[in-house]
């Protein structure tokens, strides 16, 4: 029997298609792009070796660091907007009541829509002419608060941030709901007998017991915030005046608008390193915190 499950032919035949597709379209391109990062190449002429010049140029480009700051902003509003909101809704929906499933359906719906649809929908809603937001403000007599939400450079990033929260909070709600369901009821009951109130229960039982899920959510927020592209690209393309530029948009513009493939590869690599460092760093930080609790 064991011989059959060690048969090299079967192992090869079973793994070969998946492995070759994955290596050919994911692993190998990444490795090769690592090398392109050291070349100056417009896609047509022969690549010219330039050493670390591309990387130096990326790291000293103010526009890139501005884009990086915007990514960090997205990460921060994701962590402090989506997770608390998701937690509140998860706690509210966790006790079984009529309609809980209906609300869960509604709150998760934005996650189902395609990001391009979300981007175009909200561009229209925030539109200064026909948009819902400005018309609503006018109808309730607050017309002076009406703005060109995506067209003013001081506002655009906040508007985009709001839409990101709208699209993704449902995911964190579900993740935290699943964690809440794993807390045994007896823990709460015995705490109540000891006279613990709502807030005490929240901070001393609920949060510590779902801490690993919150940590996973933070990591997800960081990963998501660092790679945001589709939504902002459809809503503002990074404008006005670079105010909503993100690293991925910067990379796209450099590579596909100005045909600097070597430079674009270098940017990809820098994004990869920055995101990974942040994720690993946050993991280390959070696991120390959970040890303290």
């Amino acid at each position: 029997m064991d011989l059959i499950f060690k048969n090299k032919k079967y192992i090869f035949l079973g793994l070969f298609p998946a492995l070759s597709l994955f290596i050919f379209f994911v692993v190998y391109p990444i490795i090769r792009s690592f090398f392109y990062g050291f070349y100056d190449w417009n896609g047509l002429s022969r690549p010219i070796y330039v050493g670390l010049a591309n990387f130096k140029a990326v790291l000293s480009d103010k526009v890139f660091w501005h884009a990086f700051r915007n990514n960090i902003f997205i990460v921060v509003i994701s962590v402090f907007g989506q997770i608390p909101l998701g937690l509140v809704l998860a706690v509210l929906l966790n006790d079984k009541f009529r309609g809980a499933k209906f609300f869960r359906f509604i709150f998760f719906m934005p996650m189902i829509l395609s990001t391009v649809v979300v981007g175009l929908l909200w561009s229209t809603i925030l539109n200064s002419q026909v948009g819902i937001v400005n018309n609503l403000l006018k109808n309730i007599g607050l017309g002076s608060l009406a703005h060109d939400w995506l067209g003013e450079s001081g506002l655009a990033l906040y508007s985009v941030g709001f839409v990101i929260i709208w699209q993704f909070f449902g995911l964190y709600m579900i993740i935290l709901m699943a964690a809440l369901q794993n807390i045994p009821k007896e823990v709460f009951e015995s705490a109540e007998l000891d006279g613990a109130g709502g807030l005490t229960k929240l901070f001393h039982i609920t949060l510590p017991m779902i801490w690993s899920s919150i940590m996973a959510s933070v990591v997800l927020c960081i990963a998501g915030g660092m790679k945001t592209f589709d939504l902002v690209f459809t809503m503002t393309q990074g404008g006005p005046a670079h105010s909503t530029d993100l690293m991925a948009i910067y990379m796209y513009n450099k590579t596909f608008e100005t045909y600097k493939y070597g430079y674009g590869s270098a940017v990809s690599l820098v994004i990869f390193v920055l995101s990974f460092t942040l994720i690993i760093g946050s993991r280390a930080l959070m696991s120390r915190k959970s040890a303290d609790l």
Partner: protein
Amino acid sequence: MKKQTNIEFLRSMSFTIGTRAKKPVKYLFLIMFGFITFFPVFWMFYTSLKSNQEVMMNTFSLPTRLHFENYIKAWKTAKIDVYFLNSVIVSVAAVILTTLVAAPAAFILSKFKFGMRGFIYSIFIVGMLIPMQTVLVPLFLQMKILGLLDKLLSMILSYTAFCLPMSIFILESFIRSLPDSIIEAAVLDGASMKRIFAQIVFPLSSPAIATVSILNFLTNWKEFSLALIFISKDSKKTLPLGLYNFIGAYSTDYSQLMAAMVIASLPLMIIYLILQDQIINGMTDGAVKS
């Protein structure tokens, strides 16, 4: 015994008082929040049935007459029919290819014993961590070299490659949980490995295959960034990319834009309505594990 009932009583008392006070506030909050979440989607649906003039006049008003011609215009004039067909071809082909390739690999990884097993498994798992954006430029160059730019195949192959880690991850853990005795019995009966896989393992894994297929379909249907860099010919665009064109071409025809967006979202909405639990659980599981 007496004490027990007393506590029981007190607990139920405090429970009722607590919920009674909280209930209206809780419902109010949920309804308010549900409204903010749902209204934009609802607005998209009913705006798609208004005339563009009505949209300009009053954003909130419900349609006075149902303008289904918006859909016809979007479908034909704005070429949503072409994009829709491309989306169907790409999404379905990638889903089928992913399943055909991932299932045997998952079977081997879960039931066979060989030295490289851990290494090969971890190649796929690390793949889940790679952000799509870091692969855009390298993958574009790869497709350029292969001459696959502006071909549907570029999307089918790359979507498959990107769906593999998650699919293998879910399928591997499912097939692992199938009892070895079933497979061993078939081996003793003299069945070939091909038959064991096709007639025993594959059918038994159908719940996991269904989950994987649904999730992959949703991902592929929504995908934008890879399509954006691979495709520039109008006749090869998928829905997200086609909708993106609207920004320039039809940016002031709001009712037609909304109709096009409803068409693009309808398949997702229908699947979500029918398979709510499976989708929610699958998506969150996948997100957390990666």
